């Protein structure tokens, strides 16, 4: 396959944005500027971007507790996100949601979800809307190796097949659900075979390879848009950070994280490939890096300067549209 320069630059920029956003979330959290529970997705950027790069605002994604990357890949405003994660009144969700509950419907981002397995049933609904109104749109749910074992996810898989919904189930297998190894939680030898058992096309890809993941997605999206129903993609990847920021990660092997950062970095793999193919140059990408760093810096400084919510006006609002 050949890729346009614009596509490659966008892909790189988005992946890099996620990476730097997440790394900065870690340091801001550690510095006390971010409250609550925060789960970052650095290491898994290629998947989010490969999944979303061909979507428009009317295609829908549903995310997880580890949702920053999905949001950014789907086009959510990075500054609004940082404000939200910092709990500010001008955040994407007015500071009421926080890291685990970011949504941006206008961008087709249906919502992060702090309940493991909460998303896929909802994403079926978005796919049902597309099917019913014949919009030609698709819906993507992000899932983990751990959430695969939640009954709600498996119900959603079956229903998607029964109704032939345009829903792509993306399973990011990062090897862990909190501190539990994926291979422990999944009784099956292969999640992909289990997915196929539901009666949908199922593939396994190297989620560190943007291009491989993108091509599987492209095929799945095409099938979905043409009425061919759901697909399951298992994308093997690694989580660079802890389950949550601050996790001591005692359950990981010696040097596991260091090794992953050195040898399994999807951004490095992308750079190596595009340079080898002579699609992009270091110079082009370094320029993007600088812009991204500036954007993240801006997000943090705007975030820190943003107003806090006001309990008088904000605590009781937005529960109902009318009551």
């Amino acid at each position, binding site marked *: 396959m050949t890729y346009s320069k614009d596509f490659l630059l966008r892909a790189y920029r988005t992946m890099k944005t996620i990476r730097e956003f997440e790394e900065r979330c870690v340091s801001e959290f550690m510095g006390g500027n971010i409250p609550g529970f925060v789960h970052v997705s650095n290491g898994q950027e290629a998947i989010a971007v490969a999944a979303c790069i061909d979507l428009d605002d009317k295609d*829908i994604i*549903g995310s997880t507790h580890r949702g920053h990357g999905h949001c950014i890949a789907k086009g959510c405003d990075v500054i609004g996100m940082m404000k939200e994660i910092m709990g500010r009144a001008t*955040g*994407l*969700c*007015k*500071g*009421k*949601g926080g890291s685990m*509950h*970011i*949504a*941006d*419907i*206008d961008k087709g981002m*249906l*919502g992060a*979800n702090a*309940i493991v397995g*909460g998303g*896929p*049933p*909802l*994403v*079926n*609904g*978005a*796919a*049902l*809307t*597309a099917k*019913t*109104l014949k919009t030609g749109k698709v819906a993507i749910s992000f899932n983990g190796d751990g959430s695969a074992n939640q*009954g*709600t996810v498996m*119900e*959603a898989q*079956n*229903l998607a097949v*029964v*109704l032939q919904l345009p829903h792509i189930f993306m399973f990011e297998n990062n090897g862990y659900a909190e501190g539990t190894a994926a291979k422990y939680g999944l009784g099956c030898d292969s999640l992909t075979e289990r997915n196929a058992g539901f009666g949908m096309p199922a593939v396994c890809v190297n989620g560190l390879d943007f291009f491989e993941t993108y091509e599987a997605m492209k095929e799945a999206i095409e099938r979905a848009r043409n009425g061919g129903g759901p697909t399951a993609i298992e994308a093997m990847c690694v989580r660079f950070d802890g389950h949550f920021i601050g996790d001591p990660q005692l359950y990981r092997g010696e040097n596991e994280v260091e090794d992953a950062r050195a040898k399994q970095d999807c951004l490095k793999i992308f750079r190596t490939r595009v340079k080898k193919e002579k699609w992009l140059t270091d110079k082009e990408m370094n320029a993007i890096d600088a812009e991204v760093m500036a954007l993240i810096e801006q997000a943090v400084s705007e975030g820190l300067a943003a107003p806090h919510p006001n309990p008088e006006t904000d605590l009781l*609002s*937005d*529960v*109902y*549209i*009318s*009551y």
Partner: protein
Amino acid sequence: MSNSTKHMKTSLKTYREAINEALHQEMERDPTVIVLGEEVSGGAGGNGQDDAYGGVFGVTKGLQPKYSRDRVIDTPISESAIVGAAIGAANTGLRPVAELMFFDFIGVCFDQIFNQAAKFRYMFGGKSITPVVIRGTVGGGWRAGAQHSNMLHPVVTHIPGLKVVMPSNAYDAKGLMVRAIRDNDPVLFLEHKIMYDNACEVPDELYEIPFGEAAFPRQGTDVTIVAISNMVTKAIEAADILAKEGISCDVIDPRTVSPLDEESILESVEVTGRLVIVDEANERCSLAADISSIVAEKGFHSLKAPIRKVTAPHTPVPFAPELEDAYIPSTAKVIAAVREVLGA
């Protein structure tokens, strides 16, 4: 019948027919309304008759032949997936009406209801809308046993972000269903299964009954009786019997329990000074307790006697008819409670 529907042509319709008609007319009017659930049509994938059930209680009968399986969707037995799909579809442009055959089945899909639909608007800072209706049958009387006879409205009334509708007659059922479908917040529409054949005059046209406005099936000055769902029937019976003795009961049917028409209850107690609350749900943390506590706080100075709750006891619903009949609040128990608060 309210003022706005007075001029409309009516006919005798059962509770079942009234809800069915609301669904038919709203689906006709608005192409984004869909219906989904187990057996809402029936016969999917089989060799027999299509629309074989139209809902196991027949409430969705005839919708599928008219609007096709694209809009009247039979599903596998996967309540989380059913309710989740309805919610996600509501977030993205449809107005789904999902059915839980028995509301007892919230146990397998409660997360989607209380943690998802109920919270989206707030969590997302007012960004999302979730115009979903989740219909479910509640209550005892069918000898269906402990797992198919619960009320459970207190559980969902507790949850901010949900609206809870409990019609007690066919007229309200139609108008409230129309309102529920048009409402932009998630609505639980709880149909008492024992009332499906109860009939009254119901307008043939579309009309809405607003949420949070009680009905007053009997007016009186001695005792206020607040009753919910099928208990309204018993409260009315009790009031009519007591009226013959010269005891005048003010029967209030909140119709929706979230939002709740507090004002009407408080105003009535201001007059009567005495309150009996009749609720088929179990007693602990119940709607009866809720209403009692509102009056104990805001209507305290009107109260001339202790508030009496007539509820199911703190037990599961028993199967045997004698036991179930003793479990469900009866007209006799309502009468006894009224006498008690009157000190008679």
